[in-house]
């Protein structure tokens, strides 16, 4: 299969687990993500948010389970770099099966300019027309006027915009943003979430982690709650708020976590 069937998930996690020695960081996490969805991954520190996104992005290998991106699947224990016959087949033009990833710390070369960073990763990604991709991302990220400026001279917010822009160079079907707003001031956050909203409206599935749970309520239409490696909740923010006793989303989230820790 090389095309997405209607309703088919852009990204699927099947029973994902991750152990670091004897410590279990993630346990049996499964979910599907669809085109245009905005999914927030929230949870207390050490819940496994970054581990989940790292596995989805292919930075970490799962100890158990598999990640499926459209027709391409990466399983636990599969040798990195091994290509299945399906995976080896190039997708048809216009299909968006790749996964973009923007790590929590901007992964950029500070001595290179904004455009040079974008151009380098476009070439490494094998994008058919790197210059067009760079121009598109400069326009979408609003960094066109600063394209020749070295990254080391940019503010934290603008670096994060370049970081996200790089993750979108190959026009992915899904993009993973790890704590994208953590180093931003309120104005920069507004611009970032506006950008994310436009991405989703164009059909890109956006999965982001955040420790600011109010952002999940405001900008996500679906929330995954992780706690100590377990997926405790998968649903709409309003539903989570209701389960947590209603009212303020953050307070409801804390109540939900406290309730889920109590034995049944």
């Amino acid at each position, binding site marked *: 299969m090389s095309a997405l069937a209607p309703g088919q998930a852009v990204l699927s996690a099947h029973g994902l687990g991750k152990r670091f020695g004897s410590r279990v960081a993630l346990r049996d996490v499964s979910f599907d993500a669809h085109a245009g969805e905005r999914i927030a991954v929230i949870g207390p520190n050490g819940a496994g948010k970054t581990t989940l996104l790292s596995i989805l992005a292919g930075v970490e290998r799962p100890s158990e389970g598999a990640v499926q991106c459209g027709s391409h699947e990466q399983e636990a224990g599969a040798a990195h770099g091994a290509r299945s016959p399906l995976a080896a087949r190039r997708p048809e033009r216009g299909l968006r099966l790749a996964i973009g990833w923007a790590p929590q710390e901007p992964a*950029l070369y500070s001595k290179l300019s904004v455009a040079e960073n974008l151009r380098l990763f476009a070439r490494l*990604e094998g994008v058919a027309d790197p210059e067009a991709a760079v121009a598109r991302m400069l326009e979408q990220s609003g960094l066109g006027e600063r394209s020749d400026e070295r990254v080391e001279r940019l503010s934290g917010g603008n670096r994060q915009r370049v970081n996200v822009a790089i993750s979108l160079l190959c026009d992915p079907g899904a993009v993973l943003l790890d704590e994208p707003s953590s180093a931003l001031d309120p104005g920069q956050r507004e611009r970032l979430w506006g950008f994310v909203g436009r991405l989703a409206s164009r059909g890109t599935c956006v999965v982001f982690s955040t420790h600011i749970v109010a952002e999940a309520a405001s900008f996500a239409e679906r929330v995954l709650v992780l706690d100590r490696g377990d997926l405790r909740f998968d649903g709409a923010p309003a539903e989570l708020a209701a389960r947590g006793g209603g009212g303020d989303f953050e307070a409801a989230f804390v109540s939900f976590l406290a309730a889920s820790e109590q034995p049944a």
Partner: protein
Amino acid sequence: MRWLLAKDLRILARSRLLVGVLVVYPVAIALLIGFAISRSPAKPRVAIVDETPPGATIELGGSRVGVSEYTDELFGQVQVVRVPTRAAAVAKVSSGDAIAAIVIPPDIVAKISSGVSQGEVEVIYNGDALQQSIVRSSIDSALAQANLALSRQIKSVAVRDMGLLLAGGQLGVLGASQEIIGLAHIAPTLRGVAARTPPGADRATLTRIAGFAAFAARNLGIAKDVLTTVSQPIAARSTLLHGRRTPLSDFAVVVAVSISLMLLCVLLAAGGIALEREEHTLARLIRRAPGATRPARALVSREQLLAGKALLAAGAAFLVALAMLLGVSAFVALQASRVGVWALALAAGALAFGALGVAIGALAREVRAASLLGFLVVLPLAFLALVPSGSIAGGLYAAIEVISFVFPYKSALQALDAAVNGSSPGVAISIVHLLGLTLLFGALARVGLRSAE
């Protein structure tokens, strides 16, 4: 991989201070080491108090040896600061103006001339244990040289007098010249007289005396040879087992260039890998996510990344080192016709150092840490490789040999020495060793880079 190389070159070009330091620092260190190795130690600055009367001579038998024969030799070994008195000499040493003082007393002439007592000079020195050791060594060496010169003079006089005793001739005593018969002439003369003497007690006595004179003449001849031998009992004859004799200055060039090659290569390679971690780009480059255009493949494989960084560092260091060699060859007589072999040795060394560098860089998360680790690893390697066998305990030297074998510096030094100076072991053996080490450290770097963050 070419895009990564182009990116690294661009970053290097924009880090001029870093590149300047990376090039200038190793070259400066290398030149200092090379200079230190190739130059003889400077003559120590020594205060001399010469209390002997001007023109004093040592009288041996009927001959005289000038005291200046001794002092000139002594003064030639040191940088002389003449002072009039012992107190002035002590002041010079105390102030650090001279590292030591030598006081030559006025009675030295009489003592040596007496033939029964030893002449004595006083050495005054100061400083910490290291300085004391250096001063003692320098002064002892200078005194030994002066003693040898005086001994040669005394031997020369003694041999001349013994020759006179043996062969006879003109002997000057108190300004008057006198003809003496030599021992060698006494025996035949007495035998002639004895032959003309009637048989009896007188003839027998003359014959016995003639026999003794012949015996004495023979032994005096041997004594002359013995005296020559005793004055310098051992002379050195050198045999070099392998290769050709390498002048110290040529070896110093090789040391300087190989240290530059190692420092530059290791620091660049280690820094290059560590930079990817520091900028958080490593994970982005090597993640293996299913993608639209490269399903389940990393943008850059770990092997490509390591090879790229090692090759870039090796290439840059190779060019700097080759330029150094060519530049130095304008001043030191190196065989420029062997430039192809130089390049081969440099390339093999650069590859091994590049692999060592990426292995070090794979362990570090920051460029500064990688640079520090690089220095900590490579500087001792250079010093260990220069420790000569026999200068330390056997067990310790064996340990140094093992360390030198598993790290590339000594092999690179040997390869370059063989390429430049034709020394042993040959270039081929060292290059094979270096290529083996390249694979070893490349594999270690791959293991070290297992984690993306």
